[in-house]
């Protein structure tokens, strides 16, 4: 590790009191930030200063700070999660910025994600999509031995590639249409690839795509911004797979 050198940054942050407030950008200064600070730790420092001044800190969603829970959600300089390849905001480090930088920070923007406050949006529409069919209908107990159905390694690996989705919604925020196709495609694919999920594949893809439209998400027009924004590198091929599953279901 190199020596700590400190930076001063200008932050232009979206502040919005609640869903009905029009909201506006406000400017803050982040001082004494080192290259080892994570982006959220930088915001923590700004918030400590705000609190001591008696002003309300910036609220943002975050929890595990390990890049896995999918709770953090900020658009930084126009890019969900800050635009570094395969990185959530909580894993973005200040070494990617330099002294004197101006940084724009906004919440996820999508019709299906209403703003709750400042940088926090309501992503419960993603839960609604999963509730529509993102599961296998197995009961607790009474299932077969885990090795009773063999699954070739490449198949298990491909299902795992899809299953890595953390449900943060960056794909929606990055998409010009506000589509949730990468999120939905990942779950549909994971379960349709595996033998355990195949029997319900047609009903699942039909129900989940319907829920997607009802929640107000847009459609995919092949911009691939979702893949670029995804902190887990989920591939757009899973959207193609979902489309295939959807077509198959129409003829089943």
């Amino acid at each position, binding site marked *: *590790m190199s020596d700590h050198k400190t930076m001063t940054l200008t932050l232009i942050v979206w502040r919005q009191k*609640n869903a009905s407030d029009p909201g506006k950008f406000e400017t803050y200064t982040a001082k004494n930030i080192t290259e*080892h*600070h*994570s982006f*959220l*730790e930088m915001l*923590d*420092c700004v918030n*400590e200063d705000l*609190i*001591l001044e008696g002003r309300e800190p910036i*609220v943002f969603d975050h*929890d*595990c*700070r*390990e*890049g*896995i*829970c*999918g*709770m953090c959600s900020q658009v930084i300089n126009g890019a969900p999660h800050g635009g570094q390849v395969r990185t959530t905001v909580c*894993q*973005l*480090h200040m*070494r990617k910025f330099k002294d004197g930088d101006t940084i724009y920070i906004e919440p996820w923007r999508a019709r299906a994600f209403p703003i*709750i*406050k400042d940088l*926090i949006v*309501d*992503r*419960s529409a*993603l*839960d609604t999509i*999963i*509730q529509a069919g993102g*599961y*296998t209908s*197995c*009961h*607790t*107990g009474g*299932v*077969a031995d*885990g*090795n009773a*159905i*063999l699954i*070739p*390694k490449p198949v*298990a*690996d491909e*299902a*795992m590639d899809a*299953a890595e989705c953390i*449900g943060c919604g960056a794909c929606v925020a990055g998409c010009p249409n506000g589509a949730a196709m990468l999120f939905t495609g990942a779950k549909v694919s*994971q379960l349709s690839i*595996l033998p*355990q*999920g195949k029997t319900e594949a047609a009903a699942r893809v039909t129900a989940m795509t319907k829920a997607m439209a009802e929640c107000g998400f847009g459609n995919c027009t092949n911009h691939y911004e979702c893949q670029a924004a995804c902190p887990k590198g989920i591939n757009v091929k899973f959207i193609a797979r979902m489309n295939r599953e959807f077509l198959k279901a129409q003829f089943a």
Partner: protein
Amino acid sequence: MILDGKCPTGPIEQTWDKHRFDLKLVNPANKRKYNVIVVGTGLAGGAAAASLGELGYNVQAFCYQDSPRRAHSIAAQGGINAAKAYPNDGDSIYRLFYDTIKGGDFRAREADVWRLAQVSNNIIDQCVAQGIPFARDYAGYLDNRSFGGAQVSRTFYARGQTGQQLLLGAYSALSRQIKAGTVKMYNRREMLDLVVVDGVARGITVRNLVTGELESYAADAVCLCTGGYVNVFYLSTNAMGCSVTASWKAHKKGALFANPCYTQIHPTCIPQAGDYQSKLTLMSESLRNDGRCWAPKKKGDTRPPNQIPEEDRDYYLERKYPSFGNLAPRDIASRAAKEQCDEGRGVGPGGRGVYLDFAASIKRLSEDTIRERYGNLFEMYEKITDENAYKSPMRIYPAPHYSMGGLWVDYNLMSNVPGLFVLGEANFSVHGANRLGASALMQGLADGYFVIPYTIGGYLATIKPGQVKEDHAEFKKSAEDVNKNVNKLLSINGKRTVTDFMRELGTMMWENCGMARTKESLEANIKKIPALREEFWKNVKVTGSGADLNQQLENAGRTADFLEFAELLCRDALHRNESCGGHFRSEYQYDDGEAKRDDVNFCYVGAWEFKGVGAEPELHKEPLKFENVHLAVRSYK
């Protein structure tokens, strides 16, 4: 009072089957008349809510996050154990039971641990049926790897994201029940009180974190599945929102708190880099399958690792514990790392680190194989440290990770407050004084999928449903108390931030009650904590309002609870004049530095009864009997 764990007797192999048969049943048609509250929707809570909903009970589930999919179980990386014995290497339910009892330093209940080992196999089958993409070999069979504290390969895994995949499995099962209407899910709610009527748990008071409104929910039983409390150390591997609040509120309403001093310090975390730091990140223990721990032999050796020749390196775990080597259990590996650093041979900033070196494995297996096994962990390491661990060894240091203590429960997972059940990390039951790797996921899912669905029925069958409703005076009183507390926090308007207090408490806890504790250090803490608590209630600054989304207010409430709980943790550590597992009292050690247990005087669960803030709590003991695994000095040499 001598506590009764209500463990079944007879041959250990038959205890769970016999007990299951003896439990009363609720008629399927009557199940919908019962309301059950589940607080927390991680592995234990998600699995419990899904399973109970599926059985036909009316379930109300609560989490503080925006979705149950965010629970911190998601961050577990390495794997989940089961006694399937697929690799043909000598595993069995009995061996998993044996390893867990011994690993826990003989401070867990035999019957509970047996049940855990027995149902472990069902868990894997259940998860496979849910479509969890566990690692497979080329023939299509489930793959296994090893974890600390075991000499067999019994750990099932899904890349480095096993916790994520298991949690998403439970979340899917839960989602299915939410859709079916058997579970009503309440997101962004924090439980701030347990409502007890005539000594029986009847519901909870929660704060709606978006609107600030206090809400009352009544039920026939309450299940707390709210995880652990190691954020009491401020820096830990837990998520930012993990707190002791739900458990502590239940404790203040009469639930006994067992073994709070058993906190696990995980040996393989990324070392702290600066004061601004908000959390520590774990590197999965599975890395020790292929990574070798070493420190320079010479004190203050500042050469880069690749310039330190073999003869100047001390592979201390392989040297000290030849039969387990780098896979020694977590408490042993943590203390060994601390020892290297205390002797002045630590590496990295401040000398608080040791190397975890993959060079030998990369040479033997290729970089691609290592990438295949642990790629995401290497990526994570690089993001945080800006270092490439394929080229130079990782630097690791122990960090607070998991609480083995928790609310006291009997064999049915019911606390001493009737109607209050506690599952997963929030209870104290199966880990003893040290949790072996890949057993937290196992416990969470065992409790949620395969224990509570049976045992809660045994309780509900004995009570009439719907005896108490939300209009009961106790609900009103509870909400008033919570409201008073909220208003008090907002009115102080002092000079120090919540984080500032939490950081001071955490530092005090880590230094005086961390990896090593002494009578003096604990007594110092017990004196200092009440003073800090007093200052908090006079000088904390919480901005904003209670009728709004207010994260500072949330943190203030959690910190206030940690300030009370920390004292109990230290008192428990002080009374336990022995070293066992994660509880290491420097006065009690063998000449070679190994922990010295005292089975004559301390072979019991220490369960504390709340007597008021600042008042000395009362200790109750549940004696532990070891009839199947005989008490012996724990050796990994």
